[in-house]
């Protein structure tokens, strides 16, 4: 097997004296969908923040496309093709939908993703393109956040809690496009609290508990019972 697009080796993240992530090994290949599951505070967001260089202290190695990401500025990492859909969407509220989306293309890797493609995925955004981001519903805001990351033309897409606070129907709509993106060769790393949603779409998964990987594998080959036990840390007993 050729080298994976992203490979984390013994990655730890510290916030002051608190260790959020502990010796994590993880890989994502091109076109692969990998899910990180874990309860609140398991270190899922810290993992994504470490990849884009937004954690205070990172140890270990983070290899992306054959090069070390650790120590690089976020802007540089994003330009090399790593895009983040941050937790809580983090749109720019006083900018219009289209301006928010265009921010994505201005920060990203040069490439072929266009506004009209994003509008094809989410037609409602085209109708609302001149509206301010703060006037959209939560689901529409999440579409803009995902579209903004896509316009950065990523080879690796990091999604932090896309379903957070959204109605199941809206989440479905967002998750529908994930396999299509993987088919285009984009590597996708999903962070989710919703286990079933996350496992349904993923090729492989990692389960985090208190900052460490306790289980990894393929959803189809792993009994659901085992996943649940590791998710809640019950297998210890």
């Amino acid at each position, binding site marked *: 097997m050729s080298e994976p697009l992203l490979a984390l080796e013994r990655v730890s993240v510290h916030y002051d004296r608190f260790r959020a992530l502990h010796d994590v090994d993880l890989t994502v290949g091109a076109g692969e969908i990998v899910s990180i599951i874990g309860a609140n505070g398991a270190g899922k967001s810290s993992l994504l*923040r470490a990849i*884009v260089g*937004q954690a205070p202290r990172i140890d270990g190695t983070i290899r992306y496309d054959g090069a070390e990401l650790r120590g690089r*500025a*976020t*802007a*540089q*990492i*994003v*330009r090399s093709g790593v*895009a*983040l859909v*941050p937790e809580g969407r*983090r*749109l*720019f*509220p*006083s*900018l219009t939908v289209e*301006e*928010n989306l*265009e*921010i*994505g293309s*201005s*920060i*990203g890797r040069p490439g072929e993703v266009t506004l009209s493609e994003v509008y094809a995925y989410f037609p409602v955004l085209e109708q609302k393109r001149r509206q301010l981001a703060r006037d959209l519903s939560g689901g529409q805001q999440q579409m803009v956040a995902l579209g*903004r*990351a896509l316009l*950065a033309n990523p080879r690796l897409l990091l999604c932090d809690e896309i379903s957070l606070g959204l109605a199941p129907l809206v989440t479905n709509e967002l998750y529908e496009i994930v396999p299509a993106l993987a088919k285009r060769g984009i590597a996708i790393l999903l962070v989710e609290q919703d286990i079933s949603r996350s496992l349904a779409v993923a090729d492989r998964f990692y389960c985090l508990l208190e900052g460490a990987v306790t289980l990894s594998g393929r959803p189809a080959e792993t009994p659901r019972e085992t996943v649940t036990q590791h998710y809640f840390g019950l297998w210890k007993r």
Partner: protein
Amino acid sequence: MNAAGLVNQLLQGILVGGLYALYASGLSISVGVMRFVNIAHGDLIVLVSFLLLTLTASLRLPLPLAVAVALPISFAGGYVLQRWLLQRVLGKGILQIVLVTFGLSVIIQNFLQGTYGADTRRLSGSGFETATIALPGGIGIGVLPLTIFVVAAALIFVLDRLLYRTRVGAQVRAVSDDVEAANLIGLAAPRIYAIAMGVVGVTVCISAAFMSVWTNFDPTSGPDRLLIAFEAVVLGGLGSLWGTLIGGIVLGVAQAVGAQFDVSWQLLAGHLVFLAIFLIRPQGLFPRY
């Protein structure tokens, strides 16, 4: 007072408003869009006035050429100031940026006093500043004030387009909205704000050029300019560049009308009108946020 006199005064007031808008335009970007208070804004204008004085008096450059030389210097100055000084204290609370820019204001004033002395100066516009256009009915319009007004309106038009119609403008507003989100998604806030401050530097240079021909300046003129600029920005509403132009005109007209009653009332009238409008409409006339 007769009708022509009144029209004349109002006209002068409106044109003076153009000058106020000119030096408030940069502050409108830093306070209204970038969201920080730059106490040294007026002193930066005076600093560039002295730079122009050196270029014209010592190097004997004609004023337009001196401005052409000073423009890139002002852009670079704004860029560097933001990148290496102001950006370090942004987001750390309102007090830090006020203290740093207040310190900068004191440093600039003392530097200018030490280098140029306390004398009052003026740049020569070679006759341009005294030319007048006579209109029927005994109304006269100064060529310089009219030029300044047109330049102010043009500058505000360009800045408004730049901020609200271009990608760089959207990036500046994005950083202003949520600097942490900008950093998280790889939008380099320090560089974008440095570019924005470079643009402020350009407005500072343009206003320094016109102001130094129209009025006297000395090393301590900065704070007065800041006060007027601040009033124009707040009156107009934060984030609105056209609002700043209107704010400047309101102040100019208020001063002109005040001066009709008593010359010593001129400045006070402007401040009183500002206070009155501020009390009724604290968000300003045309707030954009």
